[in-house]
């Protein structure tokens, strides 16, 4: 786009065209001045309006996005208590060294990792299969898509409270169904793996449909002739899925994997509410306390904001690590193509 830099004073109707020669009186001085002013205003508008349009977002972004992130790093080097958040005492890296020696931090990190894996992997695999089904020509296709997306509209709090009840040990629906099948009751809240599995189930329930729609969109963008030539070569449906769909979806799969991984590092509401009484400890034995939950416990239950900041920055570093690994994988994929 090349803006007409000031050459066109916007006189009504005929911009930029010099007036025909026999002008009776010509524009008088006042009119000329007005045009010049308008032209100056116009140039100023062109020059500064982009900044004016970006500024509101940018201001909010700096105030509520970038600044808090950096300031968290600063606060993590201090002793700050929730009871008096303005009083900061420099302690250097002590919050970090204490985290390093803190078995609950490692426990939370491990839990975040395992819950992340057992929620993300089945979720994405199921979403892929579901998207494949939704990609067939279907009666009432809109209905199916909206139906599988509905859990996305349910809040973490509502979903977790319902699932906590469904996963109840003595009267829960899930143990009842298992009992009908001859399986002994599982103590979903207090077990180690069973509790992590139950928390993961809530995540899987809420996000599988959403990811399926993202895969579906990517599937619909795959060029048709790829399938046609595969079909001509005698590829079965399964082979088409395996050798055409999956490779075409690789970038999307990577994208959803990264987004889900980031979601998993933030996991908070589900473990907080899964067992009514345990709250921020993440189960009677911290067996499903995640990093997000540990951050909350340190900051808002134990009142150590400095230590909470250190946990936040540790999470940030972990995310950077994930991003780096992701970048390496993406580069490897691009090279191999």
């Amino acid at each position, binding site marked *: 786009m090349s803006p007409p830099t000031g050459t066109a004073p916007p006189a009504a109707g005929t*911009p930029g065209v010099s007036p025909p020669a026999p002008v009776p009186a010509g524009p008088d001085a006042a009119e000329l001045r007005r045009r010049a002013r308008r032209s100056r205003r116009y140039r100023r508008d062109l020059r500064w309006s*982009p*900044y004016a349009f970006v500024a509101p*977002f940018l201001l909010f972004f700096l105030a509520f996005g970038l600044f808090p*992130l950096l300031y968290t790093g600063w606060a993590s080097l201090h002793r700050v208590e929730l009871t008096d958040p303005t009083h900061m005492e420099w302690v250097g890296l002590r919050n970090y060294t204490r985290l390093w020696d803190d078995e609950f931090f490692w426990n939370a990190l491990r839990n975040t990792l395992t819950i992340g894996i057992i929620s993300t992997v089945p979720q994405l695999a199921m979403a892929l299969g579901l998207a494949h089904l939704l990609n067939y020509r279907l009666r009432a296709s809109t209905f199916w898509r909206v139906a599988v997306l509905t859990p996305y509209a349910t809040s973490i709090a*509502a979903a977790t409270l*319902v699932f906590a009840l469904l996963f109840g040990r003595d009267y829960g629906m899930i143990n009842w169904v298992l009992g009908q099948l001859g399986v002994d009751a599982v103590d979903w809240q207090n077990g180690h793996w069973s509790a992590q599995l139950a928390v993961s189930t809530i995540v899987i329930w809420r996000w599988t449909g959403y990811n399926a729609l993202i895969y579906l969109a990517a599937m619909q963008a795959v060029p048709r002739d790829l399938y*046609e030539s595969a079909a001509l070569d005698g590829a079965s449906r399964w082979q088409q899925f395996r050798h055409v769909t999956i490779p075409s979806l690789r970038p999307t799969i990577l994208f959803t994997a990264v987004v889900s991984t980031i979601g998993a590092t933030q996991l908070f509401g589900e473990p907080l509410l899964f067992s009514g009484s345990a709250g921020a400890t993440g189960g009677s034995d911290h067996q499903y306390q995640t990093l997000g939950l540990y951050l909350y416990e340190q900051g808002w239950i134990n009142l150590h904001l400095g230590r909470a900041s250190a946990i*936040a920055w540790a999470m940030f570093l972990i995310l950077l690590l994930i991003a780096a690994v992701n970048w390496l994988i993406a580069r490897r994929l691009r090279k191999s193509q």
Partner: protein
Amino acid sequence: MTASRAGRHLHGGRLTYAVLAVFTALSLFPLVWTAIAASRDNTRLAETPPPLWFGSNLFRNLEIAWTDANMGEALVNTAVVASVTAAGTVLLATLAGFALAKLRFRLRGAVLALTLGTMMVPPQLGVVPMYMAVAELGWTDRLQAVILPSLVSAFGVFFMRQYLIQALPGELIEAARMDGASSVRIIWHIVFPVARPAMAVLGMLTFVQAWNDFFWPIIALTQNGNPTVQVALTGLGRGYIPDQSVIMAGALLGTLPLLLVFTLFGKQIVGGIMQGAIKG
């Protein structure tokens, strides 16, 4: 979609429908069961087999949740938060997205890089200073403490930018400029009308997200102060009121408005997610 003989446009067979039906049932069952449990009473929920059909206590439980657990006020608060957040986010994102899509200015590359780079940084990482700021400003328990930080949506800016790049022809803006239209007029008379479909989608997505937001509200708002639905539900879940059927009534109250939105606009929301996915 036009007819095609290619493999992927085969009609779904019976098995396809069966699997989809099972999946749909699993997706919807917890919601239906929330309503079932909300219509029972606590003792019936502590029996085997668990209830599979509705009882007669629904309105009593809804009323208790409404009054005792602050759900009425929480619903109003949440509606305000979600609407203002959605409207504000859409406005900021459209303006910035337009500038990044169609205007040239020196900081464009830097702003774009900054936006994209932080799209994946979770807001959780900044809660400590945000809380300190909120406490300092005396905004604890005030709704603006929840609304203002959530107006920042890097995803929204990116979404609007991608939409406007292809939906808004550069010639249209040039022609308007030639006619001497100011930037404000261009925004109002050209950009907003062209962007309307994407604005609607972004608005709905933001509304759903703001309605369900959990981590920051639970820090900035207290249960007895000015809770959103999610914060009020936390109080229910922690057993201030140990009655499970009332908890389920609260969960139902908090979910129903969004289910209504989904019934009305489900198709558009699905389209929006798929659209955002392709371009994201």
